[in-house]
């Protein structure tokens, strides 16, 4: 079942203009924070250091109910109208019944079908490779993205962010943003041509700061409806007219949409338990409001810039179990290691992240926002190879076994997270001309793969 749920578009826009008025700071501090704190207590949600990948189904189901409560009590705040977009519990449940349980991304032989999964499922996980938001200079964009496109384990591409357009800064909300979007499309098609994967789906203009970049470059001659059009959520639980404009446009071009919500650890939703609850409630609301195909997340530890701490991995694992046990939502997640290219830390983090999220029922894994995603040129497609290979090899694995592996990996990499292990830029770990990793970087990668096999990750055993 695919798209049957976009009929409520006008209703969504209407509610954004007629919902209950509230000040933004009151929404965050008087509504989000206290509601989260109350529901965590009420449903007895507790973080446990020893089980980063929990296998307590009752806990996961309680979290799902808490997520539904939160979604119906709080809703989504629209900054442009200062109103809450609210839905009854029944409306949200009905919305979930008709959310897409599969999605086709890309065209023809280059397309991939994303399927809903359950915890410990053997259904194939879709692999996204790229460098969401990592700034790259124009001359490196094609080599960097081609390195991902030529990787057979990668099903869908996720673009990096252009630093400039024809040498000029891409200034938000200006003609430069429009031009930047078009330049990204032009270069992306060069990448697909070079890789001979013309119908491959591309995650596009996802860093467009206003609606301009996304909407203009997703029209005739630019990115296609079959590409992966991104609509963000503003943390925590907020949207605005720029984002809703992207929703309307993507709906009207019949585009495939990825919507995502990135909670801040230690922010208005609090610690591990609050992040888990927020991660559960957000897709329920976003399904209703943005009517996307896939629902992504990349939580952030604000001081370590990553999503691989024990608390965040636990929150992801439990929330994905809550959602995948109780809905058909197509969950996607974006690994954001603190480590960067050339470091073993990055590879260990990616391994732990992929194992924890895959056995918990996600449908797509995306790699990666290496080095936290904000250091220019700190990108290398071996991240996507590792995550893809691991995702396929651990499909069907029991959560208990996954937990042991993740604990083991955490013991190895956790002390390094504080050392800002950003590694090295693309051109130092890659030969830019023939787009191959240096032998040094390839060697480090191979070493870590052998270590993983020794630990019990059945790498390479499950070719899909």
């Amino acid at each position, binding site marked *: 079942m695919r798209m049957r749920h976009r009929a409520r578009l006008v209703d969504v826009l209407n509610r954004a203009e007629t919902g209950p008025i509230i000040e933004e700071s009151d929404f965050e501090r008087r509504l989000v924070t206290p509601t989260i704190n109350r529901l965590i207590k009420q449903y007895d949600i507790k973080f446990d250091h020893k089980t980063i990948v929990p296998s307590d189904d009752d806990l996961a189901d309680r979290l799902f109910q808490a997520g539904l409560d939160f979604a119906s009590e709080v809703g989504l705040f629209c900054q442009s109208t200062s109103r809450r977009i609210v839905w009854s519990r029944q409306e949200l449940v009905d919305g979930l019944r008709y959310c897409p349980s599969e999605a086709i991304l890309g065209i023809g032989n280059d397309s991939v079908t994303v399927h809903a999964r359950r915890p410990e499922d053997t259904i194939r996980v879709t692999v996204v490779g790229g460098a969401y938001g990592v700034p790259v200079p124009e001359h490196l964009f094609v080599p960097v993205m081609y390195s991902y496109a030529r990787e057979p384990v990668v099903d869908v591409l996720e673009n990096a962010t252009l630093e400039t357009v024809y040498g000029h800064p891409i200034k938000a*909300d200006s003609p430069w943003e429009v031009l*930047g979007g078009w330049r990204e499309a032009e270069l992306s098609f060069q990448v697909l041509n070079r890789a001979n994967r013309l119908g491959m789906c591309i995650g596009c203009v996802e860093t467009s*700061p206003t609606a301009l970049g996304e909407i203009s470059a997703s029209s005739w001659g630019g990115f296609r409806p079959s590409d992966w059009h991104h609509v963000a959520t503003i943390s925590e639980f907020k949207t605005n007219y720029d984002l809703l404009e992207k929703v309307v446009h993507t709906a009207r071009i019949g585009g495939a949409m990825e919507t995502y919500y990135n909670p801040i650890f230690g922010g208005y939703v*609090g*610690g591990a338990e609050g992040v888990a609850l927020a991660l559960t409630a957000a897709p329920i609301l976003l399904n209703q409001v943005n009517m996307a195909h896939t629902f992504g997340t990349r939580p952030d530890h*604000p001081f370590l810039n990553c999503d691989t701490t024990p608390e965040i991995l636990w929150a992801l694992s439990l929330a994905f179990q809550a959602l995948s046990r109780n809905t058909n939502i197509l969950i996607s997640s974006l690994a954001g290691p603190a480590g960067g290219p050339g470091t073993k830390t990055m590879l260990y983090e990616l391994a732990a992240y992929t194992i924890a999220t895959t056995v918990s029922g996600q449908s797509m894994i995306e790699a990666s926002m290496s080095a936290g995603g904000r250091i220019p040129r700190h990108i290398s497609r071996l991240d996507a190879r590792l995550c893809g290979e691991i995702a396929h090899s651990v499909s069907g694995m029991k959560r208990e076994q996954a937990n042991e592996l993740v604990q083991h990996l955490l013991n190895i990499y956790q002390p390094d997270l504080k050392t800002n292990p950003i590694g090295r830029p693309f051109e130092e770990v890659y030969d830019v001309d023939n787009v191959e990793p240096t032998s040094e970087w390839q060697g480090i990668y191979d070493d870590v793969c052998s270590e993983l096999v020794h630990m019990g990750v059945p790498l390479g055993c499950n070719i899909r």
Partner: protein
Amino acid sequence: MSNTVDQTLDELKQALTDGDSNKTATLTRKSLDLGVEPLALIQNVIVPTLTQVGQDFQDFVIFLPELMASGDAAEKATAILEEALASSGQQMTSLGTVVIGTVENDVHDIGKNIVSTLVRAHGFKVVDLGRDVAPSVFLEAAQKEKADIVAMSSLMTTTRPSILSTINLFKEVELRNDYKFIIGGGSVTQVYADEVGADGFAPDAAAAVEVCKAILKK
């Protein structure tokens, strides 16, 4: 007597730590009634307490809502002390006035909020303009508040150009040299700060406080 003073000050520290604005206000007034000097209250109570609260947040002993609540409570206390000083004909001697905001079209404000809470805690007067702040709004606020420092946060390569637009606007109206500019946020580096001719850059909130202090000493 000094016993009651000590006890009141301890209670005030606790109220600030708890982020209890009403209690903070009551205890600030009580401290003044007991004869504590407003400046002593700032230096010996508010600054060290809020510094500790900031550190607790960095260590995640507390989370953002608690940090913001303490920041609000401190603001309330400072407002009362300002009034007390004014009515006795004195001036509030803050370390300086900082006008801060996230640049135009940029909604990332978590880092900026932390910087503004911590800088305020260290005895500066901070005017927080929020996020998505246009160059002209920085200019207007800097003039109105007689700012010493204009602080800009930018998290994206697409909004970073707005830092330069803002500095250029100040140049055009020939006010560039009346203020110090400091910048920060994920998209900004020391190299970029040098490029746009900013007076300071800091990679995190604690360093931002040091930059503010150092810049005004010059």
